[in-house]
């Protein structure tokens, strides 16, 4: 009973969070960001089924997202012209099924090998479909894409989906269901064998499993959920273009999943939330947000190879031992100058980019023409950098101290 409560409570929390979010932030912008997050979460989780859980590095996952989305928009058009009649709440399922179909076809030859061969086939197929989409105009609509209207379907309990907030609740329901099923998949024999094949495809074959079949199943499932995300995209934006299935979108989902943390189920959710926020909020403040995103990505790969989720989980051991407190002060000591350093770097970058006028930054007004400003910023940056470097060894020692294994902690060999 107790374990059941322990298992179910995160899910109830997740559901409540999804349902209550618009109560706290109800602006048009907030709801539109939540909708984007919902799409990104499903997409990033589906990507993690490939890379994080199945060890398949894909550079073309947007294909299934985009194809699902295109079919979903076409389904909306068919509903509009009354060729079909069903509630639009099922649209993500339509997208999912088409994503599944595409994944079944492409997976039939691409999952034979993992590693570089798989990565290259995914790249080739991705480019091939993105390029074809510009040629086959009647289905893909060329550069302009295709658009539909979500309000023509039969109302769902009186809801006609004119407003974004209505779409949000629909998306939230789909996100919850999709997350739940993707999690449950990890707990099935096929899901666990995907991990085993990721770790050691050769040994998996010697315990009765064809690595290819195991990969194929994960691949198909990932295609299905990517298609669901594409369907959600179609519902939210009511149009879709070639850009949604090309390499840029494929790259973005890789970025989300990686920054969030591939090894953890929750990682891609964190990545999707953080990147969507950066995408929509940061772009309001600076034109250079893509540059910051690139820097963040490269730094994450270098210093947090297991992503944000991995960084959080690193503290689990210290936490269970009650030693998290001993880390707090060193964190502050290093964190403050490091943050100051980064803030000044951003100021320098922004300052060099403003044209003519002064830069308003953190309540300061900085002038590009003043040599003094530049000099002060550079000196402050250097000082903050030195302070960070000086305090770093203390943090490292505190870290080692907090995680130090007292040998024979009840686990001694018999």
């Amino acid at each position, binding site marked *: 009973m107790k374990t059941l409560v322990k298992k179910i409570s995160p899910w109830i929390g997740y559901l409540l969070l999804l349902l209550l979010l618009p109560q706290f932030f109800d602006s048009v912008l907030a709801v539109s960001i939540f909708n984007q997050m919902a799409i990104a979460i499903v997409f990033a989780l589906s990507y993690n089924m490939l890379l994080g859980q199945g060890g398949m590095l894909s550079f073309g996952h947007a294909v299934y997202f985009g194809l699902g989305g295109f079919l979903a928009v076409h389904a909306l058009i068919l509903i509009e012209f009354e060729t079909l009649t069903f509630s639009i709440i099922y649209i993500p399922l339509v997208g999912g099924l088409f994503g599944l179909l595409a994944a079944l076809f492409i997976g039939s030859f691409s999952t034979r090998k993992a590693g570089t061969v798989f990565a290259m086939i995914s790249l080739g197929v991705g480019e091939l479909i993105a390029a074809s989409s510009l040629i086959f105009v009647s289905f893909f609509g060329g550069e302009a894409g295709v658009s539909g209207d979500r309000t023509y379907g039969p109302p769902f309990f009186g809801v006609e989906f004119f407003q974004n907030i209505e779409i949000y609740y629909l998306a939230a329901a789909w996100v919850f269901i999709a997350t739940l099923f993707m999690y449950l998949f990890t707990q*099935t*024999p096929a899901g*666990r064998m995907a991990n*085993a094949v990721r770790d*050691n495809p050769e040994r998996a*074959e010697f*315990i009765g499993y064809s690595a290819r079949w195991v990969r194929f199943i994960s691949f198909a499932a990932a295609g299905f959920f990517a298609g669901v995300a594409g369907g959600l995209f179609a519902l939210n934006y009511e149009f879709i273009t070639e850009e949604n299935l090309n390499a840029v979108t494929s790259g973005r989902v890789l970025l989300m999943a990686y920054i969030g943390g591939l090894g953890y189920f929750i990682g891609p959710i964190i990545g999707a939330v953080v990147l969507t926020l950066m995408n929509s909020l940061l772009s309001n403040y600076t034109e250079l947000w893509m540059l910051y995103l690139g820097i963040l990505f490269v730094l994450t790969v270098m210093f947090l190879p297991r992503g944000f989720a991995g960084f959080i989980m690193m503290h689990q051991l210290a936490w269970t031992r009650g030693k998290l407190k001993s880390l707090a002060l060193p964190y502050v000591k290093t964190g403050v100058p490091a943050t100051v350093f980064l803030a000044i770097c951003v100021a320098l970058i922004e300052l060099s980019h403003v044209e003519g006028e002064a830069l308003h930054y953190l309540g300061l007004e900085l002038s590009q023409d003043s040599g003094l400003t530049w000099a002060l910023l550079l000196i402050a940056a250097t000082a903050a950098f030195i302070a960070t470097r000086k305090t770093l060894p203390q943090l490292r020692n505190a870290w080692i101290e907090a995680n130090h294994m007292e040998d024979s902690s009840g686990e001694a060999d018999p």
Partner: protein
Amino acid sequence: MTVLSLRNVHKNFGETSIIRGVDLDIHEGEKHAIIGPNGAGKSTLFHLISGRYHVSSGTILYKDEEIQNKTPYEINRLGLARSFQVTNIFPRLNVFENIRCALLWSHGYAYSFWQLLGRQQALNDNAMEVLQQIGLENRANYPAGELAYAQQRALELGIAVASGADLIMLDEPVAGMSHSEAEKAVQLIRKITQGKTLIMVEHDMNIVFDVADKISVLVYGEIIASDSPENIRGNARVQEAYLGEVVSGA
């Protein structure tokens, strides 16, 4: 009854022949050791039987079924399991999951994505039993990649025997272990292969003569003798080709 028989098996890599016409019969319940100098082709022979390599010519029969062209997983499903000379586990899965994965196919789950592992009582109990057998029950939640070497070797054995295969092939199971570790491993091997057929490649002659009731000697891709341990000890050809120095030195 003959469980496994090799008939005139050859294996070439390009111009080089590694296995040059091997005939071998393994009987049910036998503990059969294959010995021979380095480079004799012992590991290659294992790879041929278990399906990692395909034979260049010849036939391999397992319970009267030809298996020389089958894939490793097809062969494994027939009831033939093996371990590896170099530890070959699932490093990021925990110890329990390693064993549970090894059990999945024989418990009939195949590629199921509609059953939850946590609810499969018989499967989970079975996995715990195997863990107890190999003495890793208190490491169940450790990532397999972080175990000590001897423990990884025990896990390697566990994965091989977990599925309850009738024929178990162990490739240098105690390689790299200290003397006391090796002794423990031999006890473990005895325990978990009870009532099963065992084929083993091993360099440590004490262990070979301790465990095996039949020994085949492989030299340059050919079996030069296949007999009981006593007769092998006394076989002049074997002495000359391989054992001489070892036995006199021991």
